[in-house]
């Protein structure tokens, strides 16, 4: 199971507490994880990446294993520790604004 940590506003929107656990078929990439997340929680579509272009929303970043994976290609494999479920994949909202 892939573990995903969402920012608080998205946890509220998806009505989940704590980490989300997802089955991700095939290669574990950022795109595949987000596909699985949006399929399981349709209300999150458009909140992390644009509905049409699927580009990351500008104020969000992706971290895992103490690395910033934001600018990795969406089809690049995520670290083995994420694929095995040992480490979570983090969706982070920028600390900005008031």
């Amino acid at each position, binding site marked *: 199971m892939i573990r995903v940590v969402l920012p608080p506003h998205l946890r509220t*929107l998806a009505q989940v507490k704590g980490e989300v656990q997802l089955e991700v078929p095939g290669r574990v990439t950022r795109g595949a994880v987000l596909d699985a997340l*949006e*399929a399981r*929680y*349709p*209300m999150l579509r*458009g909140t992390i990446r644009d509905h049409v272009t699927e580009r990351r*929303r500008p104020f969000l970043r992706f971290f895992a294993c103490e690395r910033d994976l934001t600018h990795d290609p969406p089809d690049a494999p995520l670290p083995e520790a994420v694929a095995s479920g040992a480490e979570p994949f983090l969706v982070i909202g920028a600390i900005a604004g008031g």
Partner: protein
Amino acid sequence: MSGVRVLVGTRKGAFILTGDGKRKQWDVSGPHFAGWEIYHMKGSPADANRLYASQSSGWFGQIIQRSCDGGKTWETPGGVLEKTPEGFPKGESNKFAYDASPETGKPLTTHQWYDGTQHPWEFKRVWHLEPSLSDPDTAYAGVEDAGLFRTSDGGKTWQELAGLRGHGTGPKWQPGAGGMCLHTVLLDPSNPRRMYVAISAAGAFRSDDGGTTWKPINRGLRSQYIPDPNAEVGHCVHRIALHRSRPAVLFMQKHWDVMRSDDAGDSWREVSGNLPTDFGFVIDVHAHEPETIYVVPIKSDSEHYVPDGKLRMYRSRSGGTEWEPLTKGLPQRDCYVNVLRDAMAVDTLEPCGVYFGTTGGQVYASADAGDSWAPIVRDLPAVLSVEVQTLR
């Protein structure tokens, strides 16, 4: 037992203020969607328990919320897993995609950018939700960048009425300071084929065929801040309003000038009269007196708060030109708030109730058509919108 439900959208969440028939006792619920901007919330005229809310954030984009129990609980339409024989369909929840199809949409057009160049349409947020007068599952959404969308499945999916954006004048539209937003949607209660919209900064438009085709209705508007002050489009219309008994008479608060049309927008004349300033955002019509209208004059162009530190609603009982200040119960010193374009509404009780919210977080109510005022709440986040439902 009658009462009212006031729906308040703020910079940091939504609030629902429920009042008794006398509009003296209030129950406040919220914040709903805490921390999110709620640009607008409105109830269906066909089902008072059906509410729609526009929830947005710079981080997470646009969410549509729907309530079927008068705001006690909310859901994102299309946000629930619904398995079909083919599996889980890819959700369309909250999707506002401009129609660029060859069948119904023009190719995605461009509009004028701040520097005068052409810029492609980019969806940013929903400014205004206008539920159908007859069907709770049908609603219209006015969005930034300016476009009009419709849902007929209770908000699960939205389709653009692309004839507005693509009718030809789009390349001359330009964003105002708040963005290029479609902020007003008026439905004609006597003619289901007729509707009006208003856009900053493009102007007012009318459709007589249910939203398929559109035409600008800006003749008589004069705006010194555009190269041709009498241009067909480019005017910064802030809000338009009509009375349900006389829907061809329109009232407009423009960036500057309060205007009136007696021919469904085909021509306009100024009715600013003796207002202390003719700049403002809100305008609304008394529920029972179609010639009684309300505005809140605002000091502009750079300040955008009420003049002289006094919060004054102005009322005209003659459809404009002659205005009287309404001040009883409103702060008359050291007040520097604004009242934004969607932040005023009227109920249909007798006497007519009038409500407005300020950027200082106050929501004021008058149970006597504006003669006197009292705050329902004083310390909300900045108010973006106020709507009211009359419950009978």
